[in-house]
Each structure stands twice: as C-alpha cells, then as structure tokens.
C-alpha cells in the first residue's frame, strides 16, 4: 500500500494552513485530499469582505483570502488531489477515498482532519408544518446566489440571526429580493453587532428576537410562515402569531463540526461537537490532528488559519518524534464560559499557547480569570463579551511555567 507521511483531509483554509506549516517545518511527503473540484473550502462562496484583517492587515473578500493560500500551496509544490472524497479512516491511519469513480487506499503516518462543518437543516430543528419547496439553508442559498447566480426567491424570511443569515439577508436584498425580516429564537442575536448594522439596519430589515417559525404553510412552494413569540423555555406563546407571506425561508440555525470520519476511530469528542484535542491540536488518537470548523465552529477565518498552522506544527513534531505525549493539564470552562479549546495542555510544550473560548451570553464589564487550581495566573478585563465573538487568550511560556494544576477560565463581574 502507498504510504504518505502526512495526509490532510480537506483543502479549505484550515487544511491548507496545516499543510503549509508542516512543509515549512521540514515535512516533505504531504498530500491534501479535497472532495470538491478545487481547493478553498467554504470561503469560495463567501464573496463579502472583512476577511484577513489579522492575517494580512487588509480587508479581503473570501475568494481573495483563499487564493493567497492556494498560490502558496502551488509555489511550495505541495501535492493535492481534488475530487477526492475520503470515505474511511482507521485507527492505524489507513485512508480510503474515491477519486474519478475509483476506490483508492493509502496509509498515512500522520493525519490532519480539516473537513469543516455542515449546516443544521429544517429536519434538524423540526419546524412544524408543510414540507414544501422554498425552505433552504443559508449556506445553500449563498452557494446558489454567489457561485451559480440563481436567485432563491422573491419574498424571503430568514430564521436565525447567525452571521451567515445576516450576510445573506443583505445579499438577497441587494440582488432585488424582498427580505421581510430575520427572526431569532434567542433574546439576543447570534451574529456580530457590526453585521446587524451593516446587513440589517442599513437596509431597514427588521430583526425579531425571541421569535421563531411556528408553522410553514404551502402546497408545492412555500406560501406563508407563522412567526410566534417564545417564552424563556422556548415554548411558543399562543396569541402572538404573525402571518407572513413569503416564498422562501432561509435557515441560519447553526453549524456543526463534520467529524463522521472520526467515528470509526472512537475519538473522544467535547461539547463543541468536535474532537477533544491538546495544544498541538492532536486528538486523543495517536497521530490524528484536527483543526478549523471540524474542531469547533469559527466565525473568523484568520483564526482558522492560525489553528491550521498549530495542527501542521503538531503533525511535524509528531513525525519528527519530538512531540510531548503527556496531556497533563486539563482546561475547564468555569462560570460563564461555554467551552475552551484545547481541552488539554502539555506543560512541557515550551511554546506559547493560545486558548480559544466562547462565553455563554452577552455581558458587559467582565474579568476573564485564568486560574491554576486556586492560583490566579492572569486576569483580563473585557468591556464587553458576546457569544458570537470568540475570545483568544495567549499563555506565554512564563505563564505556562506557573501552572501546576488544572486550568479554569471563568468570568467575574468587575
């Protein structure tokens, strides 16, 4: 069987960054496997700007951002195969994939998983009512509109105020559709404030909070939706129904890491629905790494690129047999924190480590407290925190040296 030192599964932002970093650290035998016809991943369809502020200090559109990495992959002569869908991954890292209708297998010494995420669909949220056409996820609408140039509808309601929903509200409106409203079940928006301003308020598109679709109505094509207010327990409140005539319901109701390939290797997962990893982005399975949206859902691609590099660095250390194997420190999401990546830290890593976390709900004037056991290692003031904005905490080598016990991160009112 053909063997390859490092196989990267998925050629999006995370996968390309991982491959480039591993190459930079001396790994020669690399192969990127990508199921689509070209490298790039989801950014191919994100044509709006705002990408690259951290990475390149300029504002780029999605396709411009990804092209810079595709160019580097080509200059570095990193082998990649497009149209190569990975079907199976085993514990001893045998990979099977289909390519041009043929079934191929190869054995990798190390694997980086960079397969991205998928969108929750109507079935997943169980919208009551008719199953008619005209109900589509925001990502699918984005692909139709931005790649193929089809309009998905004329009168549109958007369910869910995540960033993709907000971006699509603006996009469909610009292309001449009437975007009637965005409806969000939570009492606050899941998207960034700036997107609410630029995508909704700029175009006078109303945002209804604590409101969701209680019924979809239509024979073949969607004709109406009923929006109802919800109580704290997310139950619809009778008497609050709003009937809205529309031909399209766009769902922006959440993204889930795509990790079905890890099922066969019994890889432990965390509350992010991605794999449990250490500071090298190594999963609990020897030599299998994970990064990007298949690890935890990101909103800013610059951080995806950075995480991909960490995974590529880890894979290089692993192949060079220089990786530290003990996962001695556990990270614990304390008060107000919904998750932390990585879940384990290696105390002897001897390098700076970035912890990424999200808060549970929007709060103002908070201390982010980082404690090892009872010892306060660091506290950082934040004038505001929101769940849609990931927090990054850099642990320098000296701070790392002070850590003796499990690391808890929690919020405290100032």
């Amino acid at each position, binding site marked *: 069987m053909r063997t390859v030192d490092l196989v990267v599964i998925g050629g999006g932002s995370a996968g390309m960054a991982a491959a480039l970093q591993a190459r930079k650290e001396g790994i020669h035998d690399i192969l990127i496997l990508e199921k689509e016809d070209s490298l790039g991943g989801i950014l*191919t369809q994100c*044509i*709006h*700007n705002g990408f690259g502020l951290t990475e390149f200090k300029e*504002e780029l*559109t999605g*396709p*411009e951002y990804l*092209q810079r990495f595709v160019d580097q992959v080509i200059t570095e002569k990193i082998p990649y195969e497009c149209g190569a869908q990975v079907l199976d991954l085993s514990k001893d890292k045998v990979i099977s994939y289909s390519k041009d209708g043929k079934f191929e297998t190869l054995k990798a010494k190390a694997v980086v998983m960079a397969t991205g995420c998928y969108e929750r669909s109507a079935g997943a949220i169980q919208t009551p009512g008719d199953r008619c056409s005209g109900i589509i996820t925001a990502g699918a609408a984005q692909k139709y*509109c*931005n*790649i*193929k*140039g*089809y309009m998905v509808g004329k009168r549109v309601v958007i369910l869910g105020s995540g960033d993709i929903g907000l971006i699509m509200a603006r*996009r469909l409106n*610009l*292309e001449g559709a009437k975007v009637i409203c965005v409806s969000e079940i939570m009492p606050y928006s899941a998207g*960034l*404030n*700036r997107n*609410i*301003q*630029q995508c909704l*308020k*700029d175009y006078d598109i109303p945002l209804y909070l604590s409101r969701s679709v209680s019924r979809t109505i239509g024979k073949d094509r969607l004709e109406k939706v009923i929006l109802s207010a919800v109580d704290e327990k997310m139950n619809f409140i009778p008497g609050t129904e709003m009937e809205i005539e529309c031909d399209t319901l766009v769902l922006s109701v959440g993204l889930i890491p795509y990790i079905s390939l890890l099922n066969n290797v019994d890889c432990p997962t965390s509350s992010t629905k991605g794999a449990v990893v250490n500071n090298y982005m190594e999963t609990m399975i020897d030599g299998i790494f994970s990064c990007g949206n298949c690890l935890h859902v990101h909103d800013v691609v610059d951080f995806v690129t950075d995480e991909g590099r960490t995974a590529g660095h880890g894979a290089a250390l692993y192949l060079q047999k220089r990786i530290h194997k003990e996962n001695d420190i556990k990270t614990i999401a304390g008060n107000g924190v919904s998750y932390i990546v990585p879940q384990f830290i290696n105390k002897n890593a001897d390098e700076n480590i970035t912890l990424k976390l999200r808060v549970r709900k929007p709060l*103002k004037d908070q201390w982010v407290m980082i404690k090892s056991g009872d010892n306060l290692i660091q506290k950082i003031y934040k*004038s*505001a*925190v*929101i769940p849609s*904005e990931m927090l990054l905490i850099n642990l320098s080598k000296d701070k790392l040296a002070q850590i003796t016990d499990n690391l808890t991160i929690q919020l405290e009112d100032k």
Partner: protein
Amino acid sequence: MKEFTCIICPRGCSLKVDDNGNVTGNFCPRGKEYAINEITNPKRTITTTIRVKNRKDTVVSVKTTCAVPKGMIFEVMKVINTLSVNAPTRIGDVVLENILDTGANIVITKNID
C-alpha cells in the same frame, strides 16, 4: 436625533447623535469619530457578482475598490448588474472604472480558469 450601533468593537455601544452633532452613548472616543462619519457621509464597500458569459450557470465575484456613498448602493448595483465578463478571470482585473463618478472601480475578486 439619530441612533445606531457602533460597529468598531464588540461592545457595540448604542450611539445617539443630536441635531447639533453631539454624540452620546459612546464608551470611547472611537465611537464618536465613527458616529460623525456615519452622519456626515456614510459609505459602504459593495461586494456582488457578475455573469460569466462563456461558462454555463456561473457568476464571478466583484467588489468596489473603495467604499461608495450608502445612498448610492442600489444605483451602483444597477450598473454592476449590466456588466459581464469572459473566463478566465483573475483577481484584480478591472471591469469598470470610476463607477458613477464615485472614484471606485469594479474589480474581479475570484480566479476562474
């Protein structure tokens, strides 16, 4: 009196600007500057797509090279929607110069081979 959300940082202050141009609600000075720009001359960069004539069911993404006045967004869109190109396209290719005298060019943002 105008009200809007400051988009400069995640705090997202609710800014109010009265008729004399006094800004309130900003937690820091950056909010004030933003509010004044928003009142005097709000501008936005437009990103959209245009048809690729020699490819079936394909559009290519474009953008304005600088922000254009917010009030002109739909006029600018009308002009962009009349444009089309042939593949291959390269990032940075200029499709139209100085659209509606705004000083912005329309450039390609995606390579299509």
